[in-house]
């Protein structure tokens, strides 16, 4: 009986030490496109079903379908507007097989949470898509045009609650603040009400709980088409094809705002590792599978690889900084 103990211990130790590597299959069998990155993992800094999640999972799926790489493992690490994920990413210095999907929201969250790790610490890989915001009211709303709305808003900003689907610092918060600034309303006077994502926001616009709502253009296409929501304006530089609404500039507001999403990698990568990631995303961008996904999701292509994306990030960072400082956040 006594003799069995050492053997049992040895067996147990072997199981837990050697078992995991044996359970893991060898490197993925990507095809010979030269883009394969075995064991590539995608971190999603928000919850399943959120914007970055859909972007990451679509990229992973399309890259596999296009034969660019073996399986990409997508995992979620939500928290604090994406800054928990960002902090982890920066901590994984030199890991050439990790990337994170992100967007404008993370830029804002870095500011509001005052995190020590910022996007300047990451290796920019590429901006992928962009999306304009829309200004919508319910079908019962007294505001028929963006002009009506702006006139009423300027007269009494406090009485016109603005609903958005993101917490302070997020895209839906920045857009009305920029609008207010251009309209001559002090951003601090804006009565912004954050909702828990697009669903709750939609209910409060439909039920006339808020005077108007600001959200991504893709979110409410159906409700607009069905006549439940009235689209007053789009926030980008140009009109959105298929939508009958002026831009903010046409409405006399000297501002524009576009939300975007992209991919960053940990700091400290070798040039080769960085090139490999940028190369993979560039190939993905050219694939028919990605084109198809852009169409089904209603995303606008806004591809901007490597260094240029880095410069873009710096500019966005400054812009967000200015707005949030004015708000005292």
């Amino acid at each position, binding site marked *: 009986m006594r003799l069995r103990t050492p053997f049992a211990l040895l067996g147990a130790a072997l199981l837990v030490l050697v078992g995991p590597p044996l359970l893991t299959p060898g490197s993925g069998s990507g095809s010979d496109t030269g883009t394969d990155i075995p064991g590539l993992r995608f971190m999603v800094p928000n919850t399943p*079903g959120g914007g970055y999640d859909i972007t990451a*999972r679509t990229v992973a799926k399309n890259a596999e379908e296009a034969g660019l790489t073996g399986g990409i493992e997508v995992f979620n690490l939500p*928290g604090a507007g994406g800054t928990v994920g960002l902090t982890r990413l920066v901590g994984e210095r030199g890991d050439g097989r990790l990337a994170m999907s992100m967007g404008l929201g993370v830029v804002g969250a870095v500011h*509001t949470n005052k995190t020590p790790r910022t996007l300047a610490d990451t290796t920019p890989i590429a901006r992928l898509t962009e999306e304009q915001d829309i200004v919508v009211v319910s079908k019962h709303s007294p505001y028929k045009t963006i002009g009506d709305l702006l006139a009423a808003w300027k007269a009494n900003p406090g009485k016109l609650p603005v609903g958005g689907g993101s*917490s302070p610092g997020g895209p839906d918060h920045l857009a009305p603040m920029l609008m207010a600034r251009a309209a001559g309303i002090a951003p601090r006077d804006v009565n912004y009400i954050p909702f828990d994502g697009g669903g709750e926001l*939609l*209910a409060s616009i439909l039920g006339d*709980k808020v005077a108007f709502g600001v959200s991504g253009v893709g979110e*409410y296409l159906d409700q607009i088409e*069905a006549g439940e929501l009235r689209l007053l304006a789009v926030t980008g530089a140009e009109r959105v094809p298929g939508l009958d609404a002026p831009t903010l500039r046409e409405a006399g507001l000297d501002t524009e705002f576009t939300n975007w999403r992209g991919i960053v990698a940990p700091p400290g990568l070798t040039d080769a590792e960085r090139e490999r990631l940028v190369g993979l995303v560039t190939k993905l961008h050219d694939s028919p599978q990605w084109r198809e996904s852009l169409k089904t999701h209603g995303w606008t292509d806004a591809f901007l690889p490597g260094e240029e994306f880095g410069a873009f990030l710096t500019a966005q960072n400054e812009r967000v900084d200015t707005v949030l400082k004015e708000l005292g956040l």
Partner: protein
Amino acid sequence: MESLTSLMDGFGTALTPVNLLWAAVGVLLGTAIGVLPGIGPAMAVALLLPVTYGLEPTGAFIMFAGIYYGAMFGGSTTSILLNTPGESAAVVAAMEGHPMAKAGRGAQALAAAAIGHFTGGMIGTLLLVALAPVVAALAVDIGAPDYLALMVLAFIAVTSVLGSSRIRGVASLLIGLTIGLVGLDQLTGQQRLTFGSLQLADGIDVVIVAVGLFAIGEALWVAAHLRRTSGRPLPVGRPWLAREDVRRTWKPWLRGPFIGFPFGAIPAGGAEIPTFLAYVTEKRLSKHRDEFGKGAIEGVAGPESAASASAAGTLVSMLTLGLPTTAVAAVMLAAFQQYGIQPGPLLFEREPELVWGLIASLFVGMVLLLALNLPLAPVWAKLLRIPRPYLYAGILFFAAVGAYAVGGEALDLVVLLIVGLLGLGMRRYGLPVLPAVIGVILGPAAEQQLRRALQISDGSLTGLVNTPFSVTVYAVVLLLLGWPLLRKAVARRAS
């Protein structure tokens, strides 16, 4: 009547052999993953999303519905057996279910939960078919002041779970409210009680609190006073519901849906508040009130039925308005978009086959789940026969796995342990743990709605009572509060 014909067509879709197969696969997968610790329906659906990629949309969504409902059935199994709820809807199931399991009535608790899910789901889905457009229109009219009124009502209900010592119950509630304060302030984004930690910025998840207070707290408490003399395993008892059990549970099963369904349909719904309200309702109405907290079967049946019906309510808002009211709904919405389908006001016109096939498959899935889970209940319950050291070691192990799997953060484990030690202290000094969990659930929700209502009214207090709905609820609250006084006054006059 129109919807009835459509539903019949839907059954035509759902009952084809292929779709029946997908429903069965979904139900099995959902149950299997739902019983894993730390994985609730939202995560199960998200994890299994890739499995459905290869299917055509109708088959995929039928499988999806199976996974969703299956994960809910499976989730209460872990909650009841191991005291480790995997998501907030299953928290209430642990409160009465686990004591039942410990007393050798695990099979009955599981059966009561399974039948509760079945009736709740069936009635909920029937309501979905009959009332979807009406409910959807009403749900949109519910605003912040109305939610706040509902929260106040729920807080009044808390008084019935404070336990024998009021002061200790209130202490527990306040501890829960304090835990609920941790995190970023939802309206201004300021950090409260986070001590600069980013991981705490989103607050402490109610599941972590529940698992910590229930599972870890109890394991530690038992360790301090382990009955070393008795080597006998936990009794398993009779495998089936006795007539007495059925007599006690049929009403809760039927009542649950009428609490759960409306809450599921409104935005900011979720299953925590309806399950809790179902629990206190059953406690109020039960003839065995003293059994609550020690394993009252009504306390399993009612909340589980409400949870299932609230899931059906969730589908109402999602299918008719494109409005995701819970995490699961958000994941399903994303899945719809994968197929280029946009749930919303036009969905029923554009994709009638898919929608009605999906709804019909909910009924089919429910029958499959009942057929699967009822016979499994005694089998699961037998798991508790393992020796106690293994049982409690296993509870600690699975609680740890669940907490770690969610975010992959070691800090979550430390938080879990701290909450567990808190649970130990509360057990030692007779502070009931239930009010603390309720505080974590209700506190942040009530604060958010209160402040949102005030923000919408630009700071005016009239913004809290400016809807007929909220005024009605406050009237009910006053009536509930005033009733004992009134009765006393009447009694005095009579004597």
